[in-house]
């Protein structure tokens, strides 16, 4: 209590202090940092709205920005929505109305597109990478000179400049990655003297936030996140060994880290999706990928049709059945008056009965009537008798009034499965087999009622226990290229291709066929609305993003991961329609080569030191060794985790995928240089010679930057000979206009 008293006195003393002395604000401004930031801003923002045309992948991201502006729902399998939202924020701030047709690289922007503000955020992020690089090296406890070197190398890196100046996501990703690394380092350095202080918490939380932002921009961010988690784990492991810490405080440390590095990122990641789903409430081009329930939650589209449908399917209901798989495209169970050909091309015979297919468009022939096998009527009785799990039904095709049937005849394209047809009685001792058992897959109890949209249903054929399934193959000309539907005999486990749900639904009222046809043609209308919870929507959307596979495409400028180290490839981003002005993604050759050498030197030196240390020979002092290891862990580790996984990936790869890795590699250059000069250049003469070499090398970096500036910024326009001179490597594709 004594000390508490003392403290109170102390506070009252300081509270009154401002009366005695004038208020003085002292601010320390690191002019290096300010200068670097300004230079970064100039290099990235200069002439930002030039060229006023769609550059490379802007054509891809632009369409999403437009959809955000119009609040139309979309699914993009390239990554989570945070990056797209940031780009859209630029559009929003610039007052973009979303009206632009993003169809061609090089298309001139119309006047309503705020090019400058659309490109502003990536450019700002790119510019801020320069001071971040400086700060990271300072926090790694290298000299200001080394830090300055790192920042200047990033500043003069042509590929980073190009990538920052357009509406692309890599610069934003790199910004968040670097921010996460920097905040972790700040946090770790604070750890030694003032833990649980305000700034300790700030940097710890910022690490988590920056990590989740990086992951939210592109899934590539996960690699750096994992690296930081591993480093944090390692540091914590060392803390466990610290006998001065009590078990309780260890636990507090552990919980704080868990909260900031795991729980907050997950929560942030969810919130990105929350905002995404809140912003996009209108139905749009990608609706069909999603389940009916999801579609029904969007304004317009399916919601308009399904609004007010009766929930429970009853005997006599008129329904359309959608296959849940949605691959190769969404489709509905369909039939039409055409029959299967008597003999297929390969000589196999068919039943010659009416075709049953899956049809990818809305059509009146998609309507089916649920019939009770024991009764003749095709209308819903009053009160309706709902169909439950396990009930046996017949499905009657609305327009042709034929029954859905399957029998032991090989299906047209999948001979291992049974043919599904609408039964025609040819009087050839082939009896109708049209009883189906309804099995609700996502039922909660065995007496569940079959519900519109919500229930996922399997139809099990009573005679043969075959399951109604979409085979995925498309029929030849005689089947109008519609998708094949079969009865799968060997149904093992759950597969979405065997599951169907009711999409449109109404209670049938007309007993007569003619009236019924009129009824089927008229649009459905009734009202109840379905609202999915956020978590259900999130899970579905996330799953679709991860599993949606675009066709394996090849691109003129795609490259393999091995080409990147040596920069054997480039990407042409834009070409002026008339002059020779053009923009390429092309790195600074000297920087890339030096970065490779630095990584190599680092690895060899480390191995050498490690082996020597194991033999108890210490070449460098202990604290320098610690610095060397932690710097390598971040920079070489960052390079490795952002680069090596690409060798396992099967997607189309581009040079820009390498940029995060190369950023880490560039940070390594000054680290290695400083180490060499501090510890290996023993004499003063050697040191000064080394410094002279560094100056010469740095001027060559600047020289290369200047040489390639025209293709980085797209101006000035170069002549044919100048362009030919720029083709330093045969594998580079510099565009030369034919005269």
């Amino acid at each position, binding site marked *: 209590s004594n000390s508490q008293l003392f403290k109170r006195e102390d506070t009252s003393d300081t509270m009154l202090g401002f009366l005695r002395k004038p208020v003085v604000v002292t601010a320390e401004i690191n002019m290096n940092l300010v200068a670097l930031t300004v230079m970064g801003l100039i290099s990235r923002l200069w002439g930002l709205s030039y060229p006023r045309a769609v550059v490379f992948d802007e054509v891809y991201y632009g369409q999403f920005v437009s959809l955000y502006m119009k609040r139309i729902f979309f699914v993009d399998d390239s990554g989570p929505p945070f990056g797209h939202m940031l780009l859209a924020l630029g559009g929003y701030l610039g007052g973009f109305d979303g009206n632009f047709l993003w169809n061609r690289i090089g298309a001139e922007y119309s006047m309503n597109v705020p090019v400058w503000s659309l490109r502003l955020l990536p450019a700002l992020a790119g510019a801020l990478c320069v001071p971040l690089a400086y700060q990271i090296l300072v926090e790694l406890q290298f000299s200001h000179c080394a830090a300055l070197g790192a920042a200047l190398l990033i500043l003069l890196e042509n590929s980073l400049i190009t990538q920052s100046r357009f509406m692309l996501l890599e610069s934003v990703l790199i910004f968040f990655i670097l921010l996460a690394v920097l905040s972790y380092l700040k946090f770790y350095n604070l750890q030694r003297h003032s833990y649980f202080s305000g700034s300790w918490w700030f940097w710890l939380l910022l690490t988590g936030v920056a990590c989740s932002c990086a992951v939210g921009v592109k899934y590539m961010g996960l690699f750096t996140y994992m690296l930081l988690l591993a480093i944090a784990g390692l540091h914590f*492991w060392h803390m*466990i*060994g610290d*006998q001065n810490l009590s*078990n309780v405080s260890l636990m507090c440390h552990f919980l704080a880290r868990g909260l900031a590095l795991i729980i907050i990122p997950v929560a942030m990641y969810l919130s990105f999706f929350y905002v995404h789903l809140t912003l996009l409430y209108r139905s749009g081009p990608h609706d069909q990928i999603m389940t009916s329930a999801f579609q029904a939650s969007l304004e317009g589209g399916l919601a308009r049709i399904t609004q007010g449908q009766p929930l429970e399917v009853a005997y006599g209901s008129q329904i359309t059945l959608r296959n849940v798989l949605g691959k190769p495209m969404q489709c509905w169970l369909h039939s039409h008056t055409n029959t299967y050909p008597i003999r297929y*091309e390969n000589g196999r015979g068919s039943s010659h009965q009416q075709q049953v297919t899956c049809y990818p468009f809305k059509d009146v022939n998609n309507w089916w009537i649920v019939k009770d096998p024991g009764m003749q009527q095709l209308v819903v009785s009053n009160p309706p008798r709902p169909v439950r799990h396990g009930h046996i039904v017949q499905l009657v095709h609305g327009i042709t009034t034929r029954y859905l049937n399957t029998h032991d005849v090989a299906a047209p394209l*999948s001979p*291992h499965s049974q043919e599904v047809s609408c039964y025609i009685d040819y009087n050839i001792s082939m009896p109708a087999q049209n009883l189906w058992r309804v099995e609700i897959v996502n039922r909660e109890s065995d007496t569940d009622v079959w519900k519109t949209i919500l229930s996922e249903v399997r139809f099990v054929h009573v005679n043969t226990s075959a399951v109604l399934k979409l085979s995925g193959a*498309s029929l*030849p000309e005689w089947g109008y290229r519609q998708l094949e539907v079969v009865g799968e005999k*060997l149904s*093992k*486990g759950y597969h979405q291709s065997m599951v169907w749900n009711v999409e449109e639904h109404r209670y049938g009222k007309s007993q007569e066929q003619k009236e019924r046809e009129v009824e089927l043609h008229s649009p459905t209308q009734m009202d109840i609305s379905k609202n999915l919870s956020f978590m259900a929507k999130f899970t579905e959307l996330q799953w679709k993003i991860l599993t949606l596979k675009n*066709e*394996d*495409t*090849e691109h*003129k400028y795609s490259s393999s991961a091995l080409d990147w180290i040596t920069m054997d490839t480039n990407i042409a981003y834009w070409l002026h329609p008339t002059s020779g002005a053009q923009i390429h993604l092309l790195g600074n050759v000297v920087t890339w080569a030096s970065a490779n050498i630095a990584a190599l030197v680092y690895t060899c030196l480390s191995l050498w030191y490690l*082996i020597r240390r*194991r*033999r*108890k020979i210490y070449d460098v002092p202990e604290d320098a060794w610690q610095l060397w290891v932690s710097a390598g862990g971040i920079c070489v580790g960052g390079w490795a985790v952002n680069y090596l996984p690409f060798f*396992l990936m099967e997607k189309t790869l581009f040079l820009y995928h390498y940029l995060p890795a190369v950023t880490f590699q560039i940070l390594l250059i000054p680290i290695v240089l400083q180490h060499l000069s501090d510890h290996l250049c023993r004499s003063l003469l050697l040191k000064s010679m080394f410094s002279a070499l560094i100056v010469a090398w740095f001027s060559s970096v600047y020289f290369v930057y200047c040489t390639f500036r025209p293709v980085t910024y797209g101006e000035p326009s170069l002549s044919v000979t100048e362009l030919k001179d720029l083709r330093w490597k045969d*594998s580079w594709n510099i565009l030369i206009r034919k005269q």
Partner: protein
Amino acid sequence: CLFVFPSWDETHFGKMGSYYINRTFFFDVHPPLGKMLIGLAGYLSGYDGTFPFQKPGDRYEQHNYMGMRGFCAFLGSCLVPFAYLTVLELSKSLPAALLTACILIFDTGCITLSQYILLDPILMFFLMGAVLSMVKSNSCADRPFSASWWLWLSLTGVNLAGATGVKFVGLFVVLLVGLNTIYDLWDLLGNLSLSLVSVRNFSLSLYASFQSQLIGNNLHNVSVPEHLAYGSVVTMKNLRMAGGYLHSHWHLYPEGIGARQQQVTAYLHKDSNNLWIIKKHDSDTAPSSPVEFVRHGDIIRLEHKETSRNLHSHQHEAPLTRKHFQVTGYGINGTGDSNDFWRIEVVGRKTGKLIKVLRSQVRLTHVATGCILGSSGKTLPKWGWEQVEVTCTPYLKETPNSLWNFEDHINPKLPNISLDVLKPSFAEILLESHMVMIRGNSGLKPKDNEVTSKPWHWPINYQGLRFSGVNETDYRVYLLGNPVIWWLNLVTIGLYLLITISTAVALKRGVQLTSELKELSRVVLRGGGQITLGWLLHYLPFFMMGRVLYFHHYFPAMLFSSMLTGITWDTLLKFCAAFLSPSTIARKVYGGGFLALVLLIMYSFYLFHPLSYGMIGPMASDPSSPMAGLRWMDSWEF
């Protein structure tokens, strides 16, 4: 033995044993040692190599197959003592070793897999042998260069060579031993009393020598004309690693895939359908006319020798790579259209130069569309006989995919030169033949209606493999692990993780342990760690494999998992006993725990033994079947 007919993959490997006995050359995705051993066993036991091994269910009749089966079964039963010795060495605890042995004896899966002519018992024999000798040589580390040290070290090498020589999965155990050796060396390095660091060799050369016997390369001692001329008959090989020969055959592209013309593919093996005739684009070469060489930049036509169709391309999309153009065989008796014209160019050469066999890297540009003939490396579906797709790529990038060289060259009008100069080095041949095997391996894509499974199915024993017999009346064998054992193994892995983490944290926190507990924690961390690493190395890589996977791929990992179970339960019970140590219950808990586990395993074996020794009667889904109550998971099909 009751099974007088081959079951499952026996048809495959038995056939190859026959090939060895009959000295027939064949190609297979696995390295040769395993099949050579099967052949040897058959030969020694008097099998004459005449049984056709056509399909499962053909009776062996009078053929003497027992030698081969007995050989595999013997190797399979060696696993038990090997595992026993390994665990004994690692944990120094008899009960742990007994528990492991008990698991392997009573696991229905291991029994089934060892009973037939398969590569797996041979592979697992070498694998366990390698692990055992590695562990033994580790324990000899304190007296290096002694006789036993040399013995175990060289046995490790021999077993590793054996394991990799049987199946590529053997590479994982090489990795395990390699990591262990690096760890050891690191230890030695820190030992300042040692002046000389001894480096071990792994007798990998043994493996290489097995390989070299098999490589029958056509190029050896062959002489061909050096320069290409019109009228020459040639084969063209794609330059990508393990690229195939340009190939065509009478079959057409199926309906709906480009134009319905003759297929052109790349085929990995020698075949008379790989032969093409070089012709001038506008005229045929008369047999009597003087020799005219093909020059860089010429426009040529390639006629397929067997079918007399021209190599043709047009603006239809290729079957798999949608952005490329389709390549077909077109025309009748060599008469086609202008889409059959190709410009031949040599990389890095000037116009007018001659084109050399083997040495020139050639690019074929389609004259009409400007695209380049290439092989995408993707495997065509069944209609294309699972050969490799050939396309015409509009992306003018210089990759090995779009470069070809001429390998065979037949032209009676030209003088031959010897190609010994060009013969690739042994290392190159070894690399190439392995690339071909690995490609063939990863090209094993699931066919329709084939039993396949996913790696996550395996440890939970989700689904077995039907070995023989489908119908109720057949005598059926079903490859499925003893579920009690497998689930015990699965639980143990989680348990082991918990124990390891808590032990490691306790040690790091500097908790004072008795010497007994210290010894226990050393067993858990070092011994258990080695085994867990082995399990991970033999399991995780399957998640990244694109080829078709089967349940039996998990068995090497299962061996490690069983050893881990022995070690973990031993430690766990010892920990419990130490906790209760002063009281008399301690020993009882320990002994009782073991007894319960062993009895449980034996009882479950009694329940499930029909799986491997054969069952007859109705399927288990039928309540009247003797196995009715045992179908614990819906996915089991016995």
